[in-house]
Structures are given as structure tokens and as C-alpha cells.
């Protein structure tokens, strides 16, 4: 039995927000794969919960809006994202990234919204959502607001989400994914059921002749306390022939990141991973875009 003081099962998004207003100490639980483990460990023991687990109709599923933006319901599970036809057609890199979280049973329960709201730097969706410039739509009693993911992370495990706010949509603007191909590399000690030592996601838009990098977007997990874009590295390879860009992007990325040592890996090892994996991710992204490299 879990050490939970109370659990309220919300009947709608509005009901969940009302419940959060009513209890200033309540926490939101969605898939439960983070919250319940923290309760078990004692970190969240005795907490009161507002469950949005049953709000699939309002908060789950992926659609393409009329303007071409891709809208992901935050309650969509990792598995739901990975197998969704819209994701597979328009942003397969995001499906591939979330398909590397945990193991099959965890991916059938854990949600992409939870992965975004827990603010963890190693979250498998985070670097790709950063590279895609996702926009996070949150709702509160005062209405909705949109937060670019670049301004979302406020510190270790802290995001720009107030107590009475609920993430209701993850939007990938059409301009940020159309014409791009991407690749995510998770470096971990095990090939399943492990947390990333480093995660890197690279998106690339190639020139018409598939020889030059028109735009690259590079983002990391675990290269700092929060997920981050490597804007310096992106600028350094813009307009370069692909081979040259692959050779340069890693070194350039070293200027953007500031990883730490942890029990999982040293700072020096993470820097080596940043340098090596950035080039590999760019090369694979370019291959998927049709480059002969």
C-alpha cells in the first residue's frame, strides 16, 4: 500500500484545476511512473494527489491542426507517441526518442506530459522537444498561456508551471519540423531500463541537392542541470557541406554545454560524449534526409 494521504480522481481538466486550487499541497499524478516511485522511496510520502489518469478523452492523442502544427495531448503514453501515425509520418525522431525510455511496460504507462513536467534533464523526450522548439500550452483558472520550451525549465526538477496550472497540449510548430529529419542517441549503461548518461537529439534541414546543411538544431539531456539547446553549435555548422558539419558540430557543442560529474558518469566523460555523439547524430539525421554520407 502506498503512503498517500489522499487521492482525488479528476473528472475533467476543469475539475482537476479546481481540485488543485482547493488543495495547495496536492500534486498531479498522470501515468504514475515517477510519482508512485517517489512515494515509495519516501520523497513524496504522505502526499495528497490529484489524478488525471482518467482524462484520456481530453488530454490524450496526437492530431495535426489545420495549419499543420502537431498537437500532442500530454496524457499520451510513450507507447502512444511512438506508434502514432501522425508522429511516424511527420516527426519520427520524437517517436524513436520516447521509445527508448525505460522498458515496454513503463512506456505503456508513462506519459510524455509527465516527462515534460517533471523537469528532469535525462528525460528521453526532452532533448528532441527542445530541438523541435515545442510550445507548451498550460491552463489555469485564469485561462491559457503558451510557454516556449526554451523558457520552460527553471532548474533541477523545476518548470514554469504554477500550482493551479495543468499542461494541456504540447505543440510542435509546423515550421520547426517540416523539411527536417532527425536522430536521437541515448547513451546509457544498459540498452533498456536505464536512465540516459547523455541524450542528444539533432534535426537537420538539407539543401535541395542534399549536400549542405541549411539548418541544424542540436539539443541535449544531461549536458547540464536542465535540457538545453546548443545554439552555438547550430550556428557553427549552418551552410557547411554535410561532411564538414559532422566533423565540426561536436567541438562547437562543447562551448554550449556544462555537464557535471555524477555517480553515473564524470564531467569529462560526458564532454567526450557530447563531442562524439553530436557528429554521429547529425550524420544519421542527414542520412535520413537523403544525404549520401
Amino acid at each position, binding site marked *: *500500500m502506498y503512503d498517500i494521504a489522499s*487521492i482525488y480522481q479528476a473528472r475533467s481538466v476543469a475539475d482537476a484545476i479546481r481540485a488543485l486550487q482547493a488543495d495547495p499541497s496536492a500534486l498531479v499524478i498522470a501515468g*504514475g511512473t515517477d510519482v*508512485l516511485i517517489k512515494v515509495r522511496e519516501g520523497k513524496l510520502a504522505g502526499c495528497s494527489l490529484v489524478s488525471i489518469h482518467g482524462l484520456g478523452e481530453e488530454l490524450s492523442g496526437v492530431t495535426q491542426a489545420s495549419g499543420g502544427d502537431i498537437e500532442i495531448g500530454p496524457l499520451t503514453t510513450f507507447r502512444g507517441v511512438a506508434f502514432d501515425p501522425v508522429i511516424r509520418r511527420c516527426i519520427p525522431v520524437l517517436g524513436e526518442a520516447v521509445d527508448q525510455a*525505460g522498458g515496454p*511496460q513503463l512506456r*505503456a504507462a508513462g506519459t510524455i506530459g509527465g516527462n515534460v513536467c517533471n523537469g528532469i534533464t535525462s528525460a528521453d523526450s526532452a532533448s528532441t522537444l527542445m530541438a523541435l522548439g515545442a510550445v507548451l500550452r498550460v491552463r489555469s483558472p485564469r485561462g491559457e498561456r503558451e510557454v516556449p520550451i526554451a523558457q520552460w525549465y527553471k532548474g533541477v526538477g523545476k518548470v514554469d508551471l504554477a500550482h493551479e496550472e495543468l499542461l494541456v497540449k504540447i505543440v510542435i510548430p509546423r515550421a520547426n519540423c517540416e523539411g527536417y529529419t532527425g536522430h536521437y542517441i541515448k547513451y546509457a549503461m544498459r540498452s533498456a*531500463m536505464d536512465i540516459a548518461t547523455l541524450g542528444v537529439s539533432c534535426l537537420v534541414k538539407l539543401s535541395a541537392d542534399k549536400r549542405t546543411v541549411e539548418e541544424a538544431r542540436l539539443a541535449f539531456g544531461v549536458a547540464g542541470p536542465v535540457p538545453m539547446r546548443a545554439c552555438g553549435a547550430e550556428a557553427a555548422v549552418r551552410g557547411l557541406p554535410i561532411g564538414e558539419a559532422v566533423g565540426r558540430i561536436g567541438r562547437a557543442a562543447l562551448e554550449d554545454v556544462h555537464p557535471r560529474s555524477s555517480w553515473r558518469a564524470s564531467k569529462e566523460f560526458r564532454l567526450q560524449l557530447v563531442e562524439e555523439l553530436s557528429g554521429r547524430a547529425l550524420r544519421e539525421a542527414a542520412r535520413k534526409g537523403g544525404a549520401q554520407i
Partner: protein
Amino acid sequence: MIEALQCTVNGRAVEVGIDPRESLADVLRERLGLTSVKKGCEVGECGACTVLVDGVAIDSCIYLGVWAQGKRILTVEGLQTESGELSPIQRAFVEEAAVQCGFCTPGIIMSAVEIVGSGRQYTRDELRRLISGHLCRCTGYQNILNAVERAVNEAHKFVGGAE
């Protein structure tokens, strides 16, 4: 505080009083006596508590019992045939000597039920990945993989592998 949980467990409609703080694994083991559901790590890493909820394999240790309201739950107890014999998937585990201490077996069998039920054939590497959410402390993975492969092949008459 006790709440009424109504769901379908192993094909039978069930109504049971549960404490909302109980995991689905607690409910199945303690309230319904379905002890094939093992509690191993209790943090969603070992897969010993795997059951199917509406046909999908999940770790029942990190799934609240109250979330099962109205859902269909399947455990190993629900697999035996009408005559009381083992299901073909269970038999494959026996034939391939895929059971050592047996603690991880029910969970892996439930993942195998989902895998076989998908109606697809898989490469060995794909199967490896599909059962990667299970830990076997006896480290008998080769025979487990053989058993899952056999179950998939037998179910779809793909004996001898893909053409």
C-alpha cells in the same frame, strides 16, 4: 476508506472493496488471491508484477488499483484452457525449460501473451527488446527467449521461421 472497484478480471466481472492507496498488484494479490502477480522491485523495474490491462502489459506495482475501474485485467490465472490445461504459451515455457526459480515467469508470460496476441512475427532482436522490461535473477534469458519465440511461431504456424 474503502471504495468499490468494478472491473473484469480473467474474464469474470468482479466487484471488490479496495483502499485507494493500494496498487493494482496489491488488489490482485491480497483482495483477489491472484498470487501469480509477483511483487519484486515495486518500482517498475523488474516486470515481475506484469499484467494486461485492456490488453496492454503494464507493471501493476506502479498502477493504482482505482485506475482499473471498468477495465479488463488478465493474469496468468486467466490463461488456462477450459479443460484446465496449460495454455500454449505456458507450455512453450515448459518445453524450452524457460523456468528456473519461477519468480519472473508469470510476468514474462503476460508480456508473451501480448506479443503473441499482436499477430505479428518478430526477429529475435525485436523479441529481446519486447521482453526487456523483465529481469530474471537466475539469468536464464536464452531459454526464455526461446520460449517466447516458440510461442509466437506456434501460434502463427510459422514453424521453422519466416519464409
